[in-house]
């Protein structure tokens, strides 16, 4: 199979790519990386991603890493397959670009820290750091306040249709919604409706239940 994704199913970064592959209706082989036995630090894996992180990706002889580079490659290269995840109008795409950066620079950093503390640490039997949780929930609330205002004017974050700007949030949302942090989303009606909508997309349901 030409498309291969190397990672672990619990990784938010791997899930981000899987969400995109599902939206684009693309067949691929998932190759599990044995992280417990440090396979991600092996020379073979480092030749795929010199940072030794999952996921790594290949499409034929093209090897890529960084989930948001992979999704953008898929969205552009397979633009005629499955769901359209980008917009061809340059001015509208510039705005989508803004919100793609917002997810990357503002949402992901605090969202991932909270997911680590409240979702992953319990999975690994580690103790939650409540100070980190409190600090990051405050930061997340500031971001979600901006999202609430944005989503009261725009159906989706980047534009009036679903794009990568929304998709990139899905994996961290999945983990946060299984924790007490969900209440921050519930308290904001437009954010809450947007999250519920994108998480109910058939492609996401398929990708996240693998």
């Amino acid at each position, binding site marked *: 199979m030409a498309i291969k994704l190397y990672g672990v199913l619990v990784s938010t970064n791997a899930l981000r790519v899987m969400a995109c592959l599902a939206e684009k209706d693309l067949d691929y082989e998932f190759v599990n990386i044995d992280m417990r036995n440090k396979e991600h630090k092996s020379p073979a894996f480092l030749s795929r991603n*010199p*940072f030794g992180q999952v996921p790594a990706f290949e499409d034929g002889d*093209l090897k*890529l*890493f*960084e989930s*948001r*580079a992979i999704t*953008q*490659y898929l969205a*552009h*290269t397979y633009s005629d397959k499955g769901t359209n995840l980008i917009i061809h109008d*340059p*001015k509208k*795409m*510039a*705005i989508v*670009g*803004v919100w*793609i*950066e*917002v997810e*990357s*620079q*503002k949402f992901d950093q605090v969202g991932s820290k909270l997911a680590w503390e409240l979702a992953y640490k319990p999975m690994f039997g580690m103790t939650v750091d409540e100070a980190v949780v409190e600090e990051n929930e405050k930061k997340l609330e500031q971001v979600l306040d*901006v999202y609430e*205002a*944005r989503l009261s004017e725009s159906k989706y974050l980047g534009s009036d249709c679903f794009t990568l700007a929304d998709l990139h949030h899905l994996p961290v949302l999945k983990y946060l919604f299984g924790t007490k942090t969900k209440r921050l989303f519930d308290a904001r009606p437009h954010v809450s409706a947007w999250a519920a909508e994108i998480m109910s997309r058939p492609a996401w349901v398929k990708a996240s239940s693998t």
Partner: protein
Amino acid sequence: MGLKLYGFVPSNATFRALVSLYEKDLDVEFVKVHMAAREHKTPQFLSRNPFGQVPVLEDGDITVFESRAITQYVARAYADKGNELMINNDPKKMAIQSVWMQVESQKFDIPSHKLAIELYYNVLHRGREVDEALVAEYKPKLESVLDVYEQRLKESKYLGGDSFTLVDLHHLPNVYYLMATEVKKLFDARPHVSAWAADILSRPAWVKIVSMLRSEGYV
């Protein structure tokens, strides 16, 4: 033309956006935002960027914020002006360009920015005592990234491919600040990284930014 960039000196994000406009030889009005007077938190500014941060680009009826969204907008909207800043005709090359653009954003930016603020701004410019714990935390993180860059630059003339692109440009402000501090040693110790840094810092568009910095009393 109506290009306006809102920002302040020496904001690295502001310079990241501004240098892309200079690379494209565009006429832009640089509008200084008075941070000390909390201008960035006024309703008027928040209507431009709801996060209350610089830079913001206005181009006629379009408003763009987030420096890396601004540079990509500029590179595409003005593709036929000035220097080429993005590969846009070869899907495989574009994919590789995307990878290294993410690397700067996800891996390089945080440690380099933290060290730049501490060593270039707090210590060098403001004359404060160095926070050794912060430096000890972020220097090794930056070194790991530079080790990967050293390998990459052995195989590729520039980070994103064989020509200068936004991938390299996005590094300019933080690399410049760090070269004025003890962190320069980390770059000097890696010959390909060192040569690449010298190359990109010598570009005329960046030299224009340096004059702006110097005219405001920065090194």
